[in-house]
């Protein structure tokens, strides 16, 4: 299973980013192998419409689950249609820590 975490930096040891569409990076973690890959978000400085566009990007990377802080209305609508599950992480920990907490069932499901 592929988990996408919104992240401030380019690795699994970076801090989780609370914003969804304007997250600087998306880190994709393979839950079986533990391998991770970061994708820089081209939308950070865009003026609007970033939510639905980020959903397409993440969906295109084949993610099954998304961990992030907050979602806007349009992102929510796109995510609901996408079939991906979304979980909320409000802590200040790293991407790896958020994934571990998700695996333990410790995160609240948003979508």
């Amino acid at each position: 299973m592929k988990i996408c975490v919104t992240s401030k930096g380019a690795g699994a040891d970076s801090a989780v980013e609370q914003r969804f569409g304007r997250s600087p990076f998306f880190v994709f973690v393979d839950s079986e192998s533990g391998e991770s890959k970061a994708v820089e978000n081209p939308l950070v400085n865009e003026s609007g419409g970033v939510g639905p566009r980020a959903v397409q990007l993440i969906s295109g990377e084949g993610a099954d689950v998304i961990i992030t802080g907050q979602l806007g209305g349009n992102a929510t609508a796109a995510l609901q249609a996408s079939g991906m599950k979304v979980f909320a992480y409000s802590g200040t920990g790293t991407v790896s820590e958020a994934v571990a907490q998700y695996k333990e069932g410790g995160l609240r499901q948003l979508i």
Partner: protein
Amino acid sequence: MKIVVASGKGGTGKSTVAANLAYSLIELQSVTLVDCDVEVPNLHLFFNPEPAIKEVFTIIPKIDSDLCTLCGDCGRFCRYGALTVLKDRVLVFEKMCHACGGCMIVCPEKAISECNYAVGRVEDSNPLPGLRLISGFLKEGEVLAPRVIKDAKAAAEGDGLIIIDSSPGIACPVIEAMDEADFCILVTESTPFGLHDLDLAVGVTKSLGLKAGIIINRSDGSDEDVRNYCRKMDLPVLLTIPFSREIASVQNRGDLISEKLPGWKEQFAGVYKECLELCGVDE
């Protein structure tokens, strides 16, 4: 002659000024009043019109799922986020689409066609002899105010004297309302906030090369700051409407001071005359 009535901020009495100005002139000539404050149009409240209604459409993309290969190009292209390509379908967010038409061009499969989408309506009426009222209404939740404004203004095109009530502020709908006007009346109050917002609005008229004059509304008599500002910026003060209980009570009933209180019709007619002079037009 096209006069646009604007203000740097809401609540200055801009619509009241537009309505009074129009009312004061209809005995002299036909007037077309256009309500371009499409998010909260209110001129119809003064006149009880029985309007003919025309819907305002914009274009949104329609995806032919038989042709679409889900390549993702359209979603990557649309900078407004109106398209999201998922694994099994393309989502269209109508409200975010700016009708640029680009997605239809970039789609390699020609899977995208245009379809109409209603964003508002234009109401057209003749509530009084000599007065035509055209009001633009933006549908709730829609963002394409300029689209509705365009249609409302287009309906008035060709009429002799057109008075346009713009939305407050200085965002795109205001620019759209001011576009191609001959003169701009800026309505302000004599407060420090009023002056700051007035200055922003003046900046817009200057950058559009639009001649402007000021009406001070709800004046408490201490307008020195506004007057000094106008002098400095070389802006004529066309009219000062004092803050009085009598005026307030007429306006609170939804009535026009130019109709109910003596002298005001002549004052507003005088404002129009001054506008003509400032534009270099002989009557």
